């Protein structure tokens, strides 16, 4: 029997949740025995080459590329897990929610004190993904099966979730594993 397959992605996140995945320490050796990795920044596989069992997504959706990647994960993964505060509720990037997008872009690219006068230009290239009106948590874009809050979620909650999903048992999240910060 072939091993279960895991895919991961970082959308509008800081990569901290991926760091927390690596933070499972020596358990990572056991993980490598248990599973194969497909599309993931950890192994640099860029596109899905086979259907996956579990997809771990860090970060929310802030632009059209995030939405595209998220939809491809939904299509290719049996179980989709929102990992971390940004995936669950938008997180720090969502601090721009409620502020009109025009104001955000002007602040970042025109009025910010660190922008040199000759560089004052709002990026508008057709190759760039279009920024969304606000940052969306994953479950407001596609169906999400499990949520792991935390900034980042602890290695223990990630390990518990992964082993539970691989063994097909319900997640057993203890009080000290559940943190929003």
């Amino acid at each position: 029997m072939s091993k279960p397959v895991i895919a991961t992605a970082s959308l509008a996140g800081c990569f901290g949740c991926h760091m927390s995945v690596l933070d499972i320490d020596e358990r990572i050796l056991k993980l490598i025995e248990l599973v194969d990795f497909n599309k993931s920044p950890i192994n640099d596989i860029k596109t899905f080459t086979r259907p996956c069992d579990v997809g771990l997504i860090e970060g929310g959706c802030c632009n059209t590329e995030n939405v595209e990647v998220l939809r491809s994960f939904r299509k290719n993964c049996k179980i989709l897990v929102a990992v971390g505060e940004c995936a669950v509720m938008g997180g720090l990037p969502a601090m721009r929610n409620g502020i009109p997008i025009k104001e955000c872009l002007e602040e970042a690219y025109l009025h910010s004190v660190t922008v040199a006068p000759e560089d004052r230009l709002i990026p508008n290239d057709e190759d760039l993904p279009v920024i969304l009106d606000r940052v969306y948590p994953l479950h407001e874009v596609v169906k999400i099966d499990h949520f792991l809050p935390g900034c980042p979620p602890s290695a223990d909650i990630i390990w518990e979730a992964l082993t539970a999903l691989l063994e097909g048992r319900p997640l057993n999240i203890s009080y000290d594993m559940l943190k929003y910060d």
Partner: protein
Amino acid sequence: MAEIRFTIDDKPCTAKAGQTIWEAARDNGVYIPVLCHYDGLKPVGACRICTVRVNGRLMAACTQPIGKDMIIENTAPDLEDMRRALIEMLFVEGNHMCPTCEKSGNCELQALAYRYGILAPRFPYLWPRREIEAAGPHLLLDHNRCIQCLRCVRAVKTKDDKLIFALLHRSGKVRIGLDPELGPRLTEETAQKAMDICPVGAILKKEVGFAVPIGKRKFDAAPIGSETAEKA
């Protein structure tokens, strides 16, 4: 004074006349979650997290006086789910960014969410646009986090009993505000009291951020309400 007998979730309990359901439950080692209520303040029944079922009817345990032979349900699955829904609603109607909040770990709203094991809210986020206000030399008001519990309004007063905090505006635009004259004259001690009485991170004292390390904060080790059960 005659003892009042009642039951909570089939547990026989006794209470003193004049107690509220919440007080009576606490004295019998039964935890009823509260958010707007604070021991010693006049209850207002603003948040409804403490809703219990008394003889088949829903009532706010913080405001309802205990009565003879009351049959109270506190942990029925539908009640617990309703409380969960209320907590989730409070999360989505404000902007609660726990990772950036100084009150994280000491926040009662967050602690209740932990207690109920909430992983994500069932409601869509509203993302209201609210301001942060530098209110005088000692205080910072982050309106993103205010849940309108009225604790600051009730608890923080001058020596001659004048209100320092009040609710401004109406409905969805309601927010707390400081008295324009009394507010800027707040002592450091009163500012600390205001921050401590706030269940969330809406009232913060300036110049001392993140003083308590992770692991030693109020709700790091055990869920909110644990101490009520321990005392019994």
